[in-house]
């Protein structure tokens, strides 16, 4: 019976393509919206991704990793005095202006790494040597920085080239890859002491303290202990990530805007597919009635309709997912658009598609169940 149902479905090529397109389009909209949202959210915590550390200690009022409420220098020794700490190093993070050769200025995110250990240093060095950061007036630029700071130059800024940060000379010694930030400024890495010289002078400069626990102690336990003993804010990597994401969800219109896209995708998908499927059922009413007259039970007819809907759903979903992945992958290459495909997205979109096809199928089944098989004799 299901075979017959599928033949009925595939046989009507126009309707079939229409049905698949509806689901594909809907999948595309929903998955693209969600991937955009997730991608944008990963941008918000790019600091955490670029400077990997198990625990981040902050001012107690800090909720997200782009927020800088600096602490006192001695707070680092207070943190180091908590038991169970393997190490604790300072990190400066701040927005500064980089001045280019042609006089224009670009916003950058200046990162000051611990002088001795360079903890938090970028891991993917494309060119140059990280070690050269120990030479005077040196910085490491990320690939976005190369793009931004090369404007107005004859050739792209490279190793050995010089620009200015707050009227101080900065010489590029290495170029790294980094994750893009939400604020859009490229990352410029230097040592902590030098970052403090570069940055506008403030009373307190210590943005974050990066901490690792001793072996055998969990990140969470140590974070709680640091918060309790010092009164500072302490997050594990994941906690800080979620705190940051939730901050953006609460304080920006991003979730509502993108949520609207996703819901519109769902509604359009449901409308197109529901409508097309219903008209497909309507067109085949006579055949369903004939089958019924020939003795097919309601259960068999329902199974037929369900399998038709399911196949449409699965094929439309697969095609849509492939399309969105293809699109996303090419957007990622450009690097300017946030896009993150998670398995959760594929699952949620899959579930939404299943709801759409289930609704369509139920409408069809109700229609067929109400059918008087006697109509075949008229």
């Amino acid at each position, binding site marked *: 019976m299901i075979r017959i149902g599928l033949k009925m479905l*595939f046989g009507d090529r126009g309707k079939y393509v229409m049905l698949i397109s509806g689901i594909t389009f809907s999948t595309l909209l929903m998955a693209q919206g969600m991937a955009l949202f997730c991608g944008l959210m990963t941008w918000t915590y790019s600091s955490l991704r670029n400077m990997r550390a198990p625990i981040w200690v902050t001012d107690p009022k800090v909720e997200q990793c782009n927020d800088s409420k600096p602490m006192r220098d*001695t*707070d680092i*020794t207070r943190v180091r005095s908590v038991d169970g700490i393997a190490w604790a190093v300072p990190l400066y993070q701040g927005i500064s202006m980089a001045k280019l050769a042609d006089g224009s200025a670009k916003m950058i995110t200046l990162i000051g790494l611990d002088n001795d250990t360079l903890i938090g240093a970028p891991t993917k060095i494309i060119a140059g040597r990280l070690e050269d950061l120990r030479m005077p007036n040196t910085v490491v630029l990320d690939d976005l920085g190369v793009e931004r700071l090369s404007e107005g130059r004859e050739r792209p800024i490279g190793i050995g080239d010089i620009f200015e940060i707050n009227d101080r000379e900065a010489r590029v010694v290495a170029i790294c890859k980094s994750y893009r930030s939400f604020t859009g400024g490229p990352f410029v890495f230097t040592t902590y002491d030098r970052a403090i010289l570069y940055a506008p002078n403030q009373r307190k400069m210590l943005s974050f303290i990066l901490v690792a626990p001793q072996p055998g102690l969990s990140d969470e336990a140590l974070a709680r202990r640091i918060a309790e003993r010092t009164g500072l804010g302490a997050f594990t990597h994941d906690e800080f990530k979620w705190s940051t994401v939730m901050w953006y969800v609460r304080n920006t219109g991003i979730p509502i805007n993108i949520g609207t896209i996703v819901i519109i995708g769902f509604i359009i998908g449901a409308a197109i597919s529901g409508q097309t499927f219903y008209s497909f059922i309507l067109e085949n009413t006579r055949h369903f009635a004939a089958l019924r007259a020939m003795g097919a039970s309601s259960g068999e007819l329902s199974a037929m309709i369900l399998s038709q809907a399911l196949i449409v759903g699965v094929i439309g979903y697969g095609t849509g*997912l*492939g*399309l969105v992945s293809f699109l996303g992958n090419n957007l990622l290459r450009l690097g300017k658009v946030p896009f993150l*495909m998670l398995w959760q997205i594929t699952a949620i979109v899959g579930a939404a598609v299943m709801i759409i096809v289930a609704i369509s199928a139920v409408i069809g089944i109700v229609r067929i169940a109400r059918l008087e098989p006697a109509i075949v004799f008229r």
Partner: protein
Amino acid sequence: MTMLFSRFSFYLALAGMAYAGMLVLRLSAQDPVLPPPHAPTTTPFTNSVAAAGIVEAQGENLSLGVPVAGLVTAVYARVWDNVQPGQPLLQLDDRELRASLIGQRARVLVAEAAEARQRGMLARLEKVADSRAIIREELETRRSDVQVAQAELAFACATVAQTEALIERLTIRAPRAATVLQLNTRPGEFVMPGAARPPMLLGDLSYFQIRADIDEQVAPRVRPGMKAVGFLKGDTQKPIQLEFVRIEPFIVPKTSLTGSSIERVDTRVLQLIYRCQMADENAIYVGQQIDLYLQE
């Protein structure tokens, strides 16, 4: 189901799902947490108090002072010189004093001559036998003239001695056995007493002394005699064993690094003094920053 396998759309969907799956796998791959580029300092103790310290010479560093403002004419010591107590270090310009000494010395000769004359005149008077021939009063006057001349001679000599002492004072000498750590002046430069930058910095390097700052919030956990290790800035892997000396009884405001004139005191720090042997001459220097861990 066989008819499904003959449909293009089925393979399109299958390819789509596979592609999406691959993308998901690729994007969800977490960057591995790499070990730090350089191993950071770690406490060797289970419970420890951390402190930031600075290396000093034993008994603190000695900023050499000068008694008066003046021109430096000679520098007798160089950095790294081990000087003994009393050994001359600096010579200030003494020409003015020496110039006045010439006149003063002449004055001594004048006074000697005057005294000799007075003494001669007295002697001649005393040789007259006839006491009636001399007025008694005259004799008394001569005698006192001799005394005045002697006093004037003594004064002239004292002035010379005073000037010589002042000249001696312009030779700055080592107050104790020490090593010259820093030399901030050269012949021809002008030095002043109480200048922010001393002309010479001395210190006893038989031991290093470490002054550790401990945040006042952690201060209650500090006990005298706590064991400590230190890590010099830039060398995170070589712990230096430190010996407790004392706790400074006075809590001082933290000297911040920013150096801004509008700075406010954020916090106060308890200072602990530790010391260590000079193990390897080039490994440790006065003025170096050092991270300390104190065993609790």
